[in-house]
């Protein structure tokens, strides 16, 4: 299943709708669907917010596959090079009052997916997220 959107926040709904449709088609559990939804949302949102200049237009492609027992999402964009696997993990040991308010998105993706693989080829970022599902 594939969706192509412009780098606009208002297009996020099309990706979320595709993930829901994909979950229904393959009978994913609520937790499995949630994890896929969140991981894709965090990555695509990050691309829209930071991958392009203010007036720059680009395309983001999301492909979802299910080949038991593995779910995968491939996300491609034409924005500036960004490897989320190199982002250092957030420091979660702050006292509640001192906790920084950012940096959780990539942490969620890494925590919820089994593999996060980044490549850059021909001016495009390619990110592959994989999640192995437990047997029912």
């Amino acid at each position, binding site marked *: 299943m594939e969706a192509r959107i412009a780098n606009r*926040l*208002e297009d*996020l*709904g099309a990706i*979320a709708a595709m993930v829901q449709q994909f979950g229904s088609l393959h009978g994913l559990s*609520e*937790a499995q669907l*949630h994890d896929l*939804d*969140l991981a894709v*949302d*965090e990555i695509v*949102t990050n691309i*829209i*917010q930071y991958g392009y200049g203010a007036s720059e237009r680009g395309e983001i492609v999301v492909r979802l596959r299910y080949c038991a027992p593995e779910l995968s999402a491939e996300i491609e964009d034409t924005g500036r090079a960004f490897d989320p696997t190199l982002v250092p993990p957030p420091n*979660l*040991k702050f006292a*509640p*009052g001192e*906790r920084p*308010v*950012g940096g*959780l*998105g990539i*942490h*969620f993706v890494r*925590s*919820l997916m089994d593999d996060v693989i980044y490549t850059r080829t021909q001016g495009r970022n390619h990110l592959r997220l994989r999640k192995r599902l437990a047997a029912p």
Partner: protein
Amino acid sequence: MKLSESAQDGVVVVQPQGRIDNTSVKEFGDRLAQVGGTAPYRVVIDSQETSYINSAVFRALLIARKQIEKAQGRLVLCAMPAEIMRLFEIAAVTDAFVICHNRDEGIAEARA
């Protein structure tokens, strides 16, 4: 996302329904800033009908928490679905918020 709001025993209860992502988090954060900036600064967020949040929502919640605590108020979260609670655990912020099982407990905690 649809936001509803009610007042009970001097506490404002904010109930977001549906999905909060980057298309709706600004509205959510602005609403929290408004109720959290108004006396008596006691706010409960009832998430029983919230289906989805992402990292941007954590940012909004942490900002609201800071604002309300600065005013000597109380921000309480309640009725969080399992998937949302799991994100709080992954983010290691369960200790940063008062989290209750249901709205009544949340209101009592906000008044404490």
